[in-house]
């Protein structure tokens, strides 16, 4: 037990669902936790999801409980807009150097929103995968935690503009705020660094980036979300038209030696879920799913069965070879070899969703240790890292869905606790 009554300190890198869960689980078992997140908000990828499969429930429901725990827990320190630069020391006694970017808005912010009106600068809305814009001072999204505005200093015109300053009654904006470097001594480090969607422009034959109506699955989540660029209405990007047909292209990059060799684990369920988004809004839309294998393990099979009962969802087993665009209409033709009949299947649709895969986030941290982090050929951190107290969890380790991330984060919190207990004697 250390001086503050805690059982040791754990650094969690990444504030997505894995990091948030690991932080809470470790803290509830008695550890002190530093939770470091590079974005201005917690929740990572999951807060950009419209719904979770298979319950089709909003992520913010569970996150509300998690955030309430974080708000009231004296044991968790959250550092947003922060990245771990360096870790030194040795097993069970690490020193982390954390760089914090300036938020431009201090703790006096009440999230009243007066600044937004005054700000003259628009920026691409990264939260919405650049479909739409926000002001240079913005709230990342409605349920953001922390509920504070933030300034995009790449877009902000700085003190010369300064139009936001006089409208803030709370003296909460600081256009000259400096970043800082924080040092922390911890017994254990959890890499909960998560994932990024595979860059679909790499797969040239699928036309992403050139055909406007080809979007990725993560974009589709935003298109279906109330907080998204279309306020939750699924409209195709080229002309904001309501859709009558749509194709989901599975393994867009995954299970492919030219791109990602691994299976991304969640994209089948992701697309099955998105067929429900479409069906909710368009009772008559024709939906096509091109797949190699549909992977809906365990009880998720129920969801697949339910989608199969939809007569206007057609499953085509075959890998998509090419997507072409009719320039005039913006419509698309999907070509695939139907693996069952051996024939070439072509299908014209109004919109295509590429089920792009999961790439582990690189999160470059300089390790001033005698060893290096072990990654596999796909870039995922391996289960057994070479030194005690260096741990990986969630999608940093393998491509998995939310429930599996939480499960892994929970177990990893115990591994972290063990290192703390060894060090502090419980």
């Amino acid at each position, binding site marked *: 037990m250390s001086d503050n009554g805690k059982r040791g300190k754990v650094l969690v890198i990444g504030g997505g669902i894995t990091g948030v869960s690991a932080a809470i689980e470790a803290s509830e078992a008695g550890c002190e936790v530093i939770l470091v997140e590079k974005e201005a908000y917690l929740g990572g990828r999951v807060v950009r999801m419209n719904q979770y499969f298979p319950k089709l429930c909003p992520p913010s429901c569970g996150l509300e409980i998690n955030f309430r725990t974080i708000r009231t827990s004296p044991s968790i320190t959250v550092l947003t807009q922060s990245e771990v630069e360096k870790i030194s020391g040795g097993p069970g006694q690490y020193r982390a150097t954390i760089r914090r970017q300036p938020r431009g808005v201090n703790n006096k912010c009440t999230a009243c929103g007066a600044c937004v009106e005054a700000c003259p600068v628009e920026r691409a809305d990264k939260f919405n995968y650049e479909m739409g814009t926000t002001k240079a001072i913005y709230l990342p999204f409605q349920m953001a935690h922390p509920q504070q505005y933030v300034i995009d200093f790449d877009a902000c015109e700085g003190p010369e503009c300064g139009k936001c300053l006089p409208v803030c009654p709370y003296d909460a904006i600081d256009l000259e705020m400096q970043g800082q470097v924080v040092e922390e001594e911890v017994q254990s480090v959890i890499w909960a660094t998560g994932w990024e969607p595979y860059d679909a422009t790499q797969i040239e034959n699928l036309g992403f980036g050139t055909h406007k109506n080809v979007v990725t699955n993560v974009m589709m989540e935003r298109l279906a979300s109330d907080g998204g660029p279309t306020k939750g209405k699924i409209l195709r990007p080229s002309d904001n038209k309501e859709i009558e047909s749509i194709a989901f292209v599975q393994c867009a990059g995954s299970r492919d030696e030219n791109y990602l060799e691994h*299976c991304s684990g969640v994209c089948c369920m992701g697309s099955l879920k998105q067929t429900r988004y479409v069906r909710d809004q368009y009772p008559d839309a024709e939906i096509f799913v091109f797949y190699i294998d549909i992977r809906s393990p365990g009880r998720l099979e129920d969801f697949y069965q339910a989608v199969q009962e939809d007569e206007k969802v057609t499953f085509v087993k075959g890998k998509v070879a090419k997507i072409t665009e009719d320039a005039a209409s913006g419509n698309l033709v999907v070509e695939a070899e139907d693996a069952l009949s051996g024939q070439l299947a072509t299908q014209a649709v109004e919109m295509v969703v590429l089920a792009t895969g999961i790439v582990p986030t690189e999160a470059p941290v300089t390790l001033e240790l005698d060893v290096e982090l072990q990654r596999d050929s796909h870039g995922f951190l391996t289960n057994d890292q070479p030194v005690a107290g260096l741990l990986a969890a969630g999608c940093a380790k393998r491509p*998995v869905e939310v429930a599996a991330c939480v499960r892994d984060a929970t177990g990893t919190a115990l591994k972290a606790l063990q290192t703390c207990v060894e060090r502090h004697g419980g």
Partner: protein
Amino acid sequence: MDKTEKKLAVWICKGCDIGESLDVEALEKVASDEYKVELCGSHEFLCGDEGVGQIKEQIKEGVNALVIAGCSPRFQTDTFTFDGCLTERANLREFVVWSHEPNAEDTQMMAEDYLRMGIVRAQKSELPEPFEAEIDKTILVVGGGQSGMTAALESAKAGYDVVIIEKQDQLGGWLAKTTRLFPKKPPYKDVEIVDLEARVKEIEENDRITVHTSATIASINGGPGMFDVSLDANGNGAGSQFRVGSIVQATGWKPYDPDNLGHLGYGNCANVITNVQMEEMAAAGEIRRPSDGKSPKKIVFVQCAGSRDKDHLPYCSAVCCRVSLKQAMWARELDSEAEVFVLYKDIRAPGQYEDYYKAAQDDPGIFFTKGEVVAVSNSSGDNLLVDVEDTLIDKHIQVEADLVVLATGMVPAAADGEAIRQFRDAQKVIAKGEEGAQLETAKVTVEEMAAYEGTEILNLNYRQGPDLPMLKYDFPDSHFICFPFESRRTGIYPAGTVRAPNDMDGCCEDATGAAIKAIQCVELATQGKAMHPRWGDQSYPDFFLQRCTQCKRCTEECPFGTINEDEKGTPDPTITRCRRCGICMGACPERIISFKDYSVEIISSMIKAVEVPDEYDEKPRLLGLLCENDAYPALDAAGFKRLQHSEWIRFIPVRCLGSVNIVWIADALAQGYDGIIMIGCKSGDDYQCHFIRGSELMGTRSGNIQEKLKQLALEDERVRVEQLEITDHERLVEVINEFSEEIDDIGMNPFKGL
């Protein structure tokens, strides 16, 4: 804290448009004149250093209760949390000024009502004091297979004592029957060799772990932190009794019974075996077909044998694809002349296991064919004919085989606590010598449910059954996306294959997670704090039993099995089982269950504190009871978006819709409110209620409310229950406004002013 010693201060924040939209002086007068609060002030910007500093000064001078009227309690939570000081927040920002016309009479009335409710709540509430009990921190692990051994070792490594109970005469479970595991290290092509001996030795040499083999549980009494376990009079540790703090249930799985797979040749064809039999043969180093002992040259694996099949196991057993990949490559390793065919619906090798699949595909002697196997029959001699159909393209093929391996799936080795309870209850009715219809029903139940007799595993002495309740397909668990370990029995965590089909590696992950949940349980119980989802809550239900009428509603409705009952039916709660949802409080018709900071009386007083305009004012008054986890944040978000909701309504947050006591409805109607709306979370199979049954129970209770309304000759529409999601900001406002209009149309509550 004694109520008489309470020293209350009221603060009104003028920031975030509150000062410009409301008459703050008039608000202060509500506190000072109506409630005689001596310390009452306002501040331009209360959450700033100066404002907080002033509050801290007052606390130093003896203030121990605060009402802060400003933003929602979901914001500045830590700013306005002061040790040893009870704090109530009146939500003037999101619920009033951001969602209503500024400086309007009705907006002012609304703000004043929220302040009144806050003051009354602060006056009636007390700071919770933790429930104190002597807590044992030992962890019981039921099942000594992969998951159980992992949970035990991982808990012990964190410094906890562990007892393992295993019904077999040795540890290992399925691991003892497995020699090769799926690869878990890059390049994910090489199997892991099981070293069970080393694992068992590690356990045996660990001073913190006690193992009872050949042992089963006779009974478990008590609750988290104080479970008293008795073992059956057999095996190692026979009849022994000991105390533990929490439980990991790692009782594993059974293979799906292949006798049900006659259509796939099992039982009819000698050379149709299961993947379990294949594993044994491969481990023995030789694959021989049963009929003649010859080594098969053509082996066919039939995937999803009984899985993904509505007549058998509707779910996917998740591991069988990879088991067949392993066994196919193993068979080829043992006999390079053998050809292997894998007939599958979908090959499910997620993540890096794609590499493993590819390794099998790269083997020139392994062939994969998609199709559904409809029949396996004997052809010439002992050889087999496998009929494969593909319904998509209407193709029918036949494959010959020397040996067919059925990839049978996983069935959880769990007991259905609720079913066993029903069976036992029926037995009791018969034993009691009841007569008539009750006896007949009981007889039918006993007959129909006879198979449940003797299936108990945990043997919990819980009114609601001796084992965890089962959910779909007999897996015990609850809210499985965000909080996958939460069972409906506090301090008991299913792990591994009993919770979901899982591979050995997944079992380790799962068991490690369950172990920390078990650890948290004993640590939080020691501090008198609640577990998920009300982490850290120190309040707990207090039962005033002198007034109990033994109606048993609390014991029936508690989703967590907190309350047993004695022979007369008087509730006997075990507080460490409690999750603090308040559903028992909502259920109790005698209003004898209360928390220090949440009770029927506190909420009733808040309802009564609202000024209800009289019948000549033409200003209806509506009450809204909001689930604090979902509906409340949704209304906050609506306020953020400046969506305007009816000025007639006053909202009170509730811990769960299930905690709503219908006396509040009666109170509100008697008080002259014109309508009451209750908004909670989704119920049903895909429930989103964090207390599992809260909103469902409210649905049932609202039936009784409708009866009452009828008796009073009031319109049904005056009381409404809605289920919404946390993201339904706009819909929520629509629902509120529709309700308000509907009540306008119906007209005033005729009991107003009586």
